[in-house]
């Protein structure tokens, strides 16, 4: 059965980026994605080169500055303002076509792993490694991380017929997929009716010249940016030029009724909100008090184990308990209705935490970009100078740092957090009122609003603390 015309969401036909005169042609050009990928490949090559051969001091090495300051800050801004720009130009997927030539018997990714639990575990491991190995402080390890991404992507592409790395494994992809559900652009079919009659389904199967969707999304059924890498292969492959990249409300997905009823997906988006706070928590003084308490009260003295316990508790156990608990209370408030389930309640309200989490991520990563965005210039000057090139001026101007005055950064952080909170509350109210009369709706959304409120309080408290650029030494 094909997609029904009534059930499929289509953004209002506002601006279709693929129909704009110059940009549209560039985006749909067969090698359009490759151009952007090669740009990021050049950046990745610089990261590898400087990471392996450059200064060991993280602030003086482009590997650490580019990856931990610019990549993170620009990715989150790109997701907010445009869409999943990093995945669309991801250099790690460049070996994909090559890897497919070695594809062993075209195996499919195991059915048991076709969910977001792997992504969630990947994110947890990623943040744990980041903290316990101090990746941000080591250009060498940062370069190895980039190399591991290339290797991992190539290996999975070679072993399996589809693109499991992007869809099920990549922690960066999981992060981008979740945040891109707040992006103002979405792939959709210009005319779903045309897709019903389409025999080739080139958008997903590919044509002789262009591959189809790597994550196997069928354009007329796309209702979410989740799993969309914005590669635009679907637009290039469609023989009817029936694919649009259209503007939509950034809150569409948080307020829609079409979120899949799946615990793994709900848990992923819910846990990512907590990860935003936990990641920032690693940069403020109370984390040392927690570690000291763990050493004294629990006898856990190893920093790696301490961090694993802190992160496991704050990003897995706590969100898991709160998600299930809020769903249970909400379900009870609905009278334990047989029409809905706790899982459905979680699927209804978990996406409303995405704007909240996005606000936290912007407040954290935006801080680093705002306070250190210009530090890349002297780093590049020094790199060139080491090779006898006096480009970008002569001596490195090490005094360069902030993109914004320090006094405006905290108010901007507060604004990001509060806007996220307001958007979350609005989404929760929309969800509740869609399914129940006002009085009952209020009772249903109360546990979710309470969690959002407590998270916002924690975030404001956290960002108000004196941020430390990491404490790993003890006083000498």
């Amino acid at each position, binding site marked *: 059965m094909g997609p029904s015309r009534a059930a499929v969401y289509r953004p209002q036909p506002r601006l279709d980026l693929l129909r704009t005169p110059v940009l549209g042609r560039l985006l749909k050009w067969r090698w359009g994605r490759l151009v952007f990928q*090669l740009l990021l490949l050049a950046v990745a090559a610089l990261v590898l080169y400087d990471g392996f051969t450059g200064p060991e001091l993280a602030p003086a090495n482009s590997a650490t500055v580019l990856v931990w300051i610019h990549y993170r800050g620009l990715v989150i801004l790109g997701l907010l303002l445009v869409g999943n720009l990093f995945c669309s130009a991801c250099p790690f997927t460049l070996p994909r076509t090559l890897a497919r030539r070695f594809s062993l018997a075209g195996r499919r990714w195991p059915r048991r792993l076709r969910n977001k639990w792997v992504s969630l575990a990947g994110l947890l491991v990623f943040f744990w490694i980041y903290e316990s190995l101090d990746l941000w402080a080591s250009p060498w390890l940062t370069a190895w991380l980039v190399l591991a991404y290339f290797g991992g992507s190539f290996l999975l592409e070679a072993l399996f017929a589809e693109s499991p790395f992007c869809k099920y494994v990549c922690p960066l992809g999981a992060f981008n997929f979740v945040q891109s559900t707040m992006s103002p652009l979405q792939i959709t079919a210009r005319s779903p009716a045309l897709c019903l009659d389409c025999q080739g389904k080139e958008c997903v199967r590919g044509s002789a010249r262009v591959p189809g969707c790597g994550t196997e999304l069928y354009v007329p059924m796309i209702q979410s940016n989740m799993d969309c890498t914005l590669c635009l292969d679907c637009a290039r492959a469609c023989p009817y030029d029936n694919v649009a990249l259209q503007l939509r409300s950034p809150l569409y997905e948080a307020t829609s009724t079409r979120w899949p009823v799946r615990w793994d997906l709900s848990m992923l988006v819910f846990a990512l909100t907590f990860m935003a706070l936990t990641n920032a928590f690693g940069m403020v003084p109370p984390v040392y008090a927690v570690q000291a308490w763990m050493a004294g009260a629990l006898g856990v003295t190893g920093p790696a184990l301490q961090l694993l316990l802190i992160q496991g508790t704050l990003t897995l156990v706590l969100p898991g308990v709160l998600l299930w608990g809020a769903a249970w209370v909400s379900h009870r408030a609905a009278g334990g209705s047989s029409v809905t389930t706790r899982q459905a309640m979680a699927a209804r309200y978990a996406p409303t935490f995405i704007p909240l989490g996005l606000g936290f991520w912007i407040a954290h990563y935006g801080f680093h970009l705002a306070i250190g965005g210009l530090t890349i210039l002297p780093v590049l000057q020094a790199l060139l100078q080491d090779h006898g090139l006096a480009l970008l001026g002569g001596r490195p101007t090490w005094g360069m740092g902030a993109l914004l005055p320090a006094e405006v950064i905290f108010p901007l952080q507060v604004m990001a957090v509060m806007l996220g909170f307001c958007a979350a509350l609005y989404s929760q109210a929309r969800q509740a009122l869609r399914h129940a009369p006002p009085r009952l709706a209020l009772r249903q959304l109360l546990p979710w609003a309470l969690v959002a409120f407590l998270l916002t309080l924690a975030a404001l408290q956290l960002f108000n603390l004196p941020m430390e*650029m990491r404490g790993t030494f003890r006083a000498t």
Partner: protein
Amino acid sequence: MFRPRPQKSVPACDTSLRWLWIILAAGLVLPSVAGCGLRRVEVDQAPEIDVRVLTSPTPPRVGPAELTLELLDPAGLGVDLAVLQVRGDMLHPGMAPVDGIVGQAVKGHYPVAFEWSMAGDWILTVDGQLQDGRRLLRTFELRVEPVP
């Protein structure tokens, strides 16, 4: 419900694709391999000189600070007449470094006016030239506490 079939390999026979792989391989492998040995390696030429950093206040706190660099030769005598530069970098990337102002030495003690701009981990680099022309290069790790 439409179910996607596994995709077939994309034919990679045209010249453009071949070039893509060459660029990819070159972009990843060559910089790492060729880079070894190209970068300037900075070496301390006076390992026998004992360099210590004394901080005031102790432990270091965010704000203005008085540092004292103590340079002693193997006999325990102060080393004067060195031209020193002091630079503080935060361990985390993304913060502009801070330069200290080094004063005149008395019996191997060099006063340094400094300002810790943020709490956290700092790398203090002492770089300079001794009277005999040899380079002195040392780094120190310090943890700076927030203002109470």
